């Protein structure tokens, strides 16, 4: 019981992370294609701006709770996918460095350099999280060769997830900026909906062949729902309603993450820490979670509405 609840909490943090910071990866990946001027470039970064710290920190909560509640799983995943995580963390560092440093100097060359660094790092981040999910979908690693983390199925998952995140980021940008830039972002998102849905269908089809899933039906239903969410997002994008479109792409990103967790949950709960430790964590989590979520709601409400050039900009 306690194992199940804490696994759900880790799942909540990881899904939340990939939806929220995923929108920032997506913006990083598409922003240079939504407008070439310095104004547009700054607006796209500051569209993420107020949310940046509060969203990326979801991964700290996910990994922190993983260390505390599922130490064996944490050790297995990190050592099992060692090269993937080195690339992932490297990309994370580069992306954050780019965000913080890019606009600190006036030099056009330095800004161009960081713009490209943010774009590359964001794409690599999206792909490597996809790789992690694909590997987890195939089962918890048991000390194989590091190269095993790059199986064809995991690579397919990486591609599908990367594509989903790009659609999601473009939808986020369409919602957060105005005018021409918003239109271009929405068009970009719409163009990529079909490839993303196609890749998800392939993930679903090959999933039954390649992956050793403990709860295959639940997982399959969740991935299928993600395809539906993409279709809904495409409709909203077509009508120019960006808020609901973003909600739909958020579902499309989140559902496959839940599918991996749900599919493997019977195995994962077995890797939990001792009951005494789980009890302590459970009590603290029950107190902290409402505060954490309230803080996030405050963040979203305080900065709702599109970002405009007159707003304070930092990034």
């Amino acid at each position: 019981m306690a194992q199940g609840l804490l696994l759900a909490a880790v799942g909540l943090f990881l899904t939340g992370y990939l939806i929220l910071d995923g929108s920032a990866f997506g913006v990083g990946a598409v922003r240079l294609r939504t407008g070439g001027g310095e104004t547009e470039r700054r607006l796209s970064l500051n569209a993420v701006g107020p949310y940046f710290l509060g969203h990326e920190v979801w991964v700290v909560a996910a990994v922190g709770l993983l260390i505390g509640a599922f130490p064996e799983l944490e050790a297995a995943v990190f050592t099992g996918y060692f090269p993937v995580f080195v690339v992932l963390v490297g990309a994370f560092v580069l992306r954050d460095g780019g965000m913080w440093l890019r606009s600190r100097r006036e030099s056009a060359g330095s800004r161009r350099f960081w713009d490209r660094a943010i774009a590359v790092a964001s794409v690599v981040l999206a792909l490597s999280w996809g790789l992690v999910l694909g590997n987890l979908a195939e089962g918890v690693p048991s000390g194989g060769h590091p190269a095993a983390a790059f199986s064809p199925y995991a690579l397919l998952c990486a591609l599908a997830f990367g594509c989903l995140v790009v659609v999601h980021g473009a939808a986020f940008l369409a919602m957060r900026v105005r005018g021409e830039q918003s239109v271009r972002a929405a068009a970009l998102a719409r163009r990529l909906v079909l490839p993303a849905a196609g890749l998800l269908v392939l993930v679903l089809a090959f999933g039954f062949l390649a992956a050793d899933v403990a709860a295959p039906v639940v997982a399959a239903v969740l991935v299928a729902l993600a395809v539906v969410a993409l279709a809904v997002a495409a409709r909203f994008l077509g009508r120019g309603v960006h808020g609901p479109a973003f909600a739909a792409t958020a579902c499309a990103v989140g559902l496959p993450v839940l599918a991996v967790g749900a599919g493997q949950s019977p195995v994962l709960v077995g890797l939990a820490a001792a009951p005494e430790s789980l009890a302590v964590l459970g009590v603290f989590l029950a107190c902290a979670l409402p505060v954490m979520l309230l803080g996030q709601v405050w963040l979203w409400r305080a900065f709702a509405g599109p970002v405009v050039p007159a707003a304070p900009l930092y990034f």
Partner: protein
Amino acid sequence: MNAVDLARLQFALTAGFHFLFVALTLGLAPLLCFLQTRWVITGKREHRAATRFWGRLYVANYGIGIVTGLVMEFQFGLNWGGVTAYAGNVFGAPMALEAIVAFFLESTFLGMWLFGWDRIPKWAHLALIYLVTLTAYASALFIMVANGFLQHPVGGEVRDGVFRLTDFGALMTNREALDGLGHLVAAALLTGALFMAGISAWHLARRTPQREFFLSSLRIGAVVAPVAALVTVAGGFVQTDYLKIDQPAKIGQALEDQASLAAAHGQPLPPAWISGPTQIMVILGFLLVLLSVYALIVTLISRGKRARFLLRPLTWVIPLPFLLTLCGWVLREVGRQPWTVYGLLRTDQAASAVHEGSVVASFAVFGLLLAALGVADYLVIRRFSRRWDDIPELVREQTAAPAVPLEAGRVL
């Protein structure tokens, strides 16, 4: 050098590098609370300017600090799987609590504070900086509880070769954790205070037109620094006393103390070279007490007028508290060797079974990235500390928020 040594060196460099940012974060946060409270109460333009000036330095420091912290969090899993396998039940709890109770909220609130100028109501914006400070200190508490457990494993027992939690209260009140925290917080406040005093002194020594503004900051730093320096030194002595009992091998090697070495007879010893950093730490500790008192006297007598040559040294002092805390960490962590969990789990048992090649590759990737970002961020901080003419409140005579030109770029 084998894979374990390499993993140790990597962790030491990441943790040491991370701590430079942590020290300044913990040191500046309470000072920022003071500055912003003063502004909200008085409503004076120059007080708002002070919050802005020191706040953007805080943010520039925090942004890269969070990245180094994240690399560390991942390294626990990547390189030190043995710790979680053996002591994950106990060590993992404070780590998890740090992430969810403290770090998560700190980041959420700091992002809101940074972008919330003139958008979030004044009092709520003030509350945000208090929440950031509170959660930053909660973070330090949980991390020191985790580290205190490695130094002095309490709160549990070994069953079937695995450490299990039996007494959470004992884990949280471990004196290795709490005394270490006090020592560290004082050193961090010293770092923040001397940072503020040193930068203010730089401007005053260059005859800045903003004399009153920087004199005010200099005073704050110069008043906090001597107190923090004294508490830092006292905190060190408090720990030495019981470490002679808890970790005689560490004290024996660090202070070349024959009685402690005799008490540690038969126990594995940490390397003898830790006496070097220990001596540097002790000398710097006393030196910084003197320098802090000097800063206070100069501030009181000079009023920043004809004392340029007296003010100059205050700027050169800025790096010393950073060096002091790094030496302290070397003593604490290398002095614990060859144990990761003192007396229970050796460091070679704590390492993950990963290929040497993987460790080398990750060392190269993280080392290069972090070093490059560190240099770039140092340049940003240096630039922010040297300029005041891009703080709108200091340039213009109006109190209302000025319209911000997009290309200005450094407006927050």
